[in-house]
């Protein structure tokens, strides 16, 4: 592995750690397996690409967050108001988003940003680590914000919602509202992650989102398996480390000659191993404390 490869892995690791932090909200905090992710990631890519080309890359990031959040809101409404099973709701939104994403991208399956300025353009003229620095600032700020948020009254309610819904209702909190807020925030972060991905790769592709849910899950599970601590900040950091580690595993796999087409298979296998290993180890503990 040479330096460029390592740099690339770190950059992608940082980008996917934001995705994983979003998934942390839906999967870990709210306990909802949210499949919207594969769609909302591409939505982030598409919005970011279009806005970057048309006006400003920063605005592209903000609008990508908003668009992702809206996608999450739709899934949330399907789950809470129409009582559709969470997994099915995610798949439905994801499917619908394919058409919407294509419309956002003006019917084109991919958009190049090569001629446009991205948020990384300026700093990359100063140092070749520019992209990495910007990305890690994003990650650190998001981790700190989430850590703060999850300790506010609202954050507490959100966490309790995934832990014991009965208890949340008994504390006079509208669990439906909590799910809507949580899923919006989660997919907003996923959209932001897609937006950064697009600007880092300088192109947006309609298929970019495929397998993102698995990447996020893998990151969370790997991270929280290695670093066992129930403190909020620590598990957020664990998720970030998991995402970066996971990226390195994939990069290494590519280096030793596994084709990029086989990567998704490898991803799925890694997730299966990670999940089953935690289940086997946690078996006794879970029974004792649930």
């Amino acid at each position, binding site marked *: 592995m040479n330096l460029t490869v390592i740099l690339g892995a770190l950059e992608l690791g940082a980008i996917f750690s934001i995705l994983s932090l979003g998934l942390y909200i839906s999967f870990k905090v709210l306990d909802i397996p949210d499949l919207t992710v594969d769609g909302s990631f591409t939505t982030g890519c598409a919005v970011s690409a279009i806005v970057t080309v048309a006006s400003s890359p920063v605005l592209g990031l903000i609008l990508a967050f908003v668009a992702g959040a809206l996608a999450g809101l739709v899934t949330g409404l399907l789950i809470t108001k129409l009582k559709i099973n969470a997994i099915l709701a995610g798949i439905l939104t994801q499917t619908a988003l394919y058409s919407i994403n294509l419309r956002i991208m003006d019917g084109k399956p991919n958009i190049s940003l090569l001629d446009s300025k991205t948020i990384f353009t300026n700093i990359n003229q100063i140092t070749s680590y520019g992209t990495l620095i910007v990305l890690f600032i994003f990650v650190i700020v998001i981790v700190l914000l989430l850590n703060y948020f999850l300790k506010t*009254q609202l954050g507490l*309610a959100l966490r309790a919602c995934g832990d014991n819904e009965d208890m949340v209702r008994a*504390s006079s909190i509208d669990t439906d509202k909590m799910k809507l807020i949580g899923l919006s925030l989660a997919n907003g972060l996923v959209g932001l992650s897609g937006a950064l991905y697009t600007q880092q790769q300088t192109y947006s592709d309609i298929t970019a989102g495929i397998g993102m849910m698995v990447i996020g899950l893998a990151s969370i599970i790997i991270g929280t398996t290695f670093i066992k601590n129930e403190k909020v900040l620590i598990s957020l950091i664990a998720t970030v480390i998991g995402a970066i580690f996971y990226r390195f595993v994939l990069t290494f796999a590519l280096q030793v000659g596994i084709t990029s087409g086989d990567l998704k298979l490898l991803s799925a296998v890694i997730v299966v191993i990670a999940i089953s290993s935690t289940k086997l180890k946690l078996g006794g503990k879970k029974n004792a404390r649930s």
Partner: protein
Amino acid sequence: MLEVKDLNVIFNQGTVNEKQAIRHLNLTLNDGDFVTIIGSNGAGKSTLFGAISGDVPITEGQVCLDGIDITNQREYVRARNIGRLFQDPLRGTAPHMTIEENLALSYSRGKHFSLRPYSKKDHTVFKEALKRLNLGLEERLNTKVGTLSGGQRQALTLLMATLVTPKLLLLDEHTAALDPATSDKVLKLSQKIVEENHLTTMMITHNMEDALKYGNRILMMNNGEIIADIDAEAKKTMKVEDLVHKFTDVSEANDRMLLRGS
């Protein structure tokens, strides 16, 4: 205080599985009443609690709390004024959160949810409250609730339900899953908290002794109806046997009626 007027609850209406769980039930509770409710399984006790607290849809009738019609309020809105404990001690607390976080959540009941971190100021309030439980939990504010015993969790749930004083407290066999000694402790604690806060309380129990020992009124339910309403005066002279007699008389009569009907 609490007024239930002509309440009907019918499950699976219009299907072959239709079951009328509550039949034209009328009930008025006075401020500060502590009512124990007894009755066989399927008598409609828990359904009545469900209808009052909002997780069982009311087919017909009206529920008023403090003069306000709450029949159409959603469960979480009613929870502002109604505290409820279940038989399952795991149901009332969030296991992966600390004692303090659990208390902080219930302490903000009925208040606006903000983006401010939960206040450290409440720390002393929680400690004081926990101290009154006499379980040594005041030293373990940062312990995950999942590591506590069933009795401790039920005591904590009781505290959480009453930390912000509710207008009505519903105890649904809340000690049935605990061992006798712990059950006794939690019951005494319940009574202490109810008396201290002058709470209007309803308690379902299958233990006739407890039904006589606690509260100032006994309701006996059967087949969705209140079949006996025993006031404080009558209760004083009653013994467990009298209560059991009364109970079996009615339910036997009911069985006979059922047999004749078929």
